[in-house]
């Protein structure tokens, strides 16, 4: 069965408890969330959730219907992978015992268009943005050096062009 990642965008009421309601529904229905990112939108009383899920067509359809059923969820859209920009950001902390490794890491970071954002005598922190595959690849590359800590934001996405999931006022 085809179980690829699907990105769902949900416009929800921006108030306490909504994330709990959404997360609770996913847990209760035995749906898995691969990643979720939540933030305010350009409309101050609305928030946008970008939820990445895995499942076959039937399961995704159920997830969208169950999301729509929640009263605080105003609009749900499935973002088609071919017509969206999706990004994830990660902060990666790498141990750097010597100057040689340090310059190697900085070179790799350059190739990945990542930035060094913190340096200490024994570690480096790199900020990297891109699609999830790119971030996976960078982290894999850093593993031999010693990855101390990774913080990933989860995927966030918008559809290309004028199409939007906006709520018209």
């Amino acid at each position, binding site marked *: 069965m085809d179980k690829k990642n699907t990105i769902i965008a949900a416009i929800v009421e921006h108030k306490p*408890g909504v994330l709990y309601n959404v997360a*609770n529904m996913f847990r209760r229905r035995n749906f898995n969330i691969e990643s979720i990112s939540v933030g305010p939108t350009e409309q101050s009383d609305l928030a946008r959730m970008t939820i990445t899920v895995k499942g076959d067509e*039937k399961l995704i359809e*159920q997830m969208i*219907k169950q999301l729509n*059923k*929640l*009263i605080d969820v*105003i609009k749900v859209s499935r973002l088609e992978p071919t017509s969206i920009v999706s990004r994830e950001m990660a902060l990666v902390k790498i141990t750097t015992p010597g100057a040689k490794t340090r310059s190697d890491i900085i070179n790799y970071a350059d190739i990945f268009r990542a930035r060094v954002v913190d340096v200490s005598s024994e570690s480096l922190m790199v900020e990297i943005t891109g699609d999830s595959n790119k971030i996976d690849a960078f982290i894999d590359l850093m593993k031999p050096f010693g990855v101390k800590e990774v913080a990933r934001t989860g995927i966030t996405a918008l559809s290309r062009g004028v199409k939007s999931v906006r*709520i018209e006022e």
Partner: protein
Amino acid sequence: MTKMSGAQAVIEALKRQKVEAIFGIVGGAVLPIYDVLYETPEIRHILARHEQCAAHAADGYARASGRPGVCMATSGPGATNLVTGIANAYMDSSPVIALTGQVNAFAVNSSYIIGKDAFQEADIIGITTPITKYNYQPKKASEIPRIMKEAFHIATTGRPGPVLIDLPKNVQTETAEMKFTDNVELRGYKPKTSPHPLQVKKAVELLLKAERPIILAGGGVIASNASSELLALAELLMAPVATPLMGKGCFPENHPLSLGDMGMHGTLAANKLILEADVLLAVGTRFSDRTTGKLDEFCSDAKIIHIDIDSAEIGKNVDVDVPIVADAKKTLKAIYQLLISKLQKKESSQWSKRVQEFKEQFKDEISGSEKDLKPLRLMKELRKILPNDAIVATEVGLNQMWAALYFMAYKPRTFISSGGLGTMGFGFPASIGAKVACPDRPVVDVAGDGSFIMTSQDLACSVMEKIPVTVIVLNNSVLGMVAQWQRLFYGRRYSAVDLGNVPDFVKLAEAYGAKGTRVGSLKEFSKAVKKAIKSEVTTVIDVPISPEENVFPMIPAGAGLKGMIESEGEL
């Protein structure tokens, strides 16, 4: 705008909703509301003896009347005791409003506030999120009018369900300018009620071609008051109607086209005939596992039309050919109107003749002596005694399945049972609620000894509040449904099902000031029921029956319709 306290606003909102009764138990965190109730004669408060009963009674009230039922409890244990009742209402889509007290939401005189684990604090919002349609916790008194209005709107529209409002104590006492309006603006909640014309057309095309149509009518038909539309459509199509438990009563069971219950303990006629259907019109039903059995054996050759107001039910369990997301009443009407222009109404068809043959072949036969208190005989006798509009509630277990199979319901909202959650102890408090909603009609709880004991303390409530109901305890001294499974599937290893012959239900009833009587023959049973339904005090009729009595037919859990066990002889 009127200045009043939060507690006054709660009661004012209930009055505006024309709430006539609240089932509840007082406690520390709801004192301000009870203080207002003290001077509100328009709203009757019914003091339950356990909050679970208050919730079930509100549920029973809602199911009998079609109006939302209201229950109330204090914070902490009061609120958590409501939980089973709320979950039960949620599973069966019953419009219940639950009001709970909560510890203070904001600091007054350095009091403890929510989140500090104060005395009798429980996170009832967190606890009830998965079992309510929605829940609220106002943080300011001025929010109460809007929240109360929205709560009733959400509970009663679309697919109905329970809504909980958690009221922090100092929100109840805070005074504010209150603005009551009739408008509800919820941008995330706009249930679609009208069917899409194209889908109606597709359904009609399928039905016109159908040679062996069957209608599966569930609780949604009752919720949308669509019984007359269902009857008209069934007669036009000459389509038999099977009802899963929640739909029982939506189609008169004495009608030639009625197949009765379908599912795990459905009638032979319904469970066998449905396999022959070429088109299944399912309306207001969610294809629960208890209805369908194993999914691959369920109507695999039939085209399925599924009408439900909850779009998430479409395709959840069964793949359908024509989905229609809309109100059952409007949709059945739309289908009928389109069909009538294309279809000649017939008196009978080959299919309807086959239905009659089936019904004749699988008719329940009463056998044995009258001394033998068989559930079939008792339920048939009960039907003879009760008027058509009498309300029968059931507990859960064998009693429930016997009532569902053998007690014919003729009207919607006259058969009340815990379907989805299967809550033992539901029937008795639900019958109290039903009696409050319909004081002029007899209300009977068909109970088992195991179930009744779970909520029997509310005999005190029914006696003190003068809400007379009749409880028929089919007393087999055993947790009968489980014992049946152990008998059939666990080699008669009866583990933890023996209840002994305690309590003495006659004495128990009398201890509460109710009437208690024990019957040993059909004649005595009949006499006792006739007396009980006219009595001004609740009556418990203890009917000793055999602990070996089973309910058949039965589709074992996990099996399909073809795996139905028809009688004991097959084992």
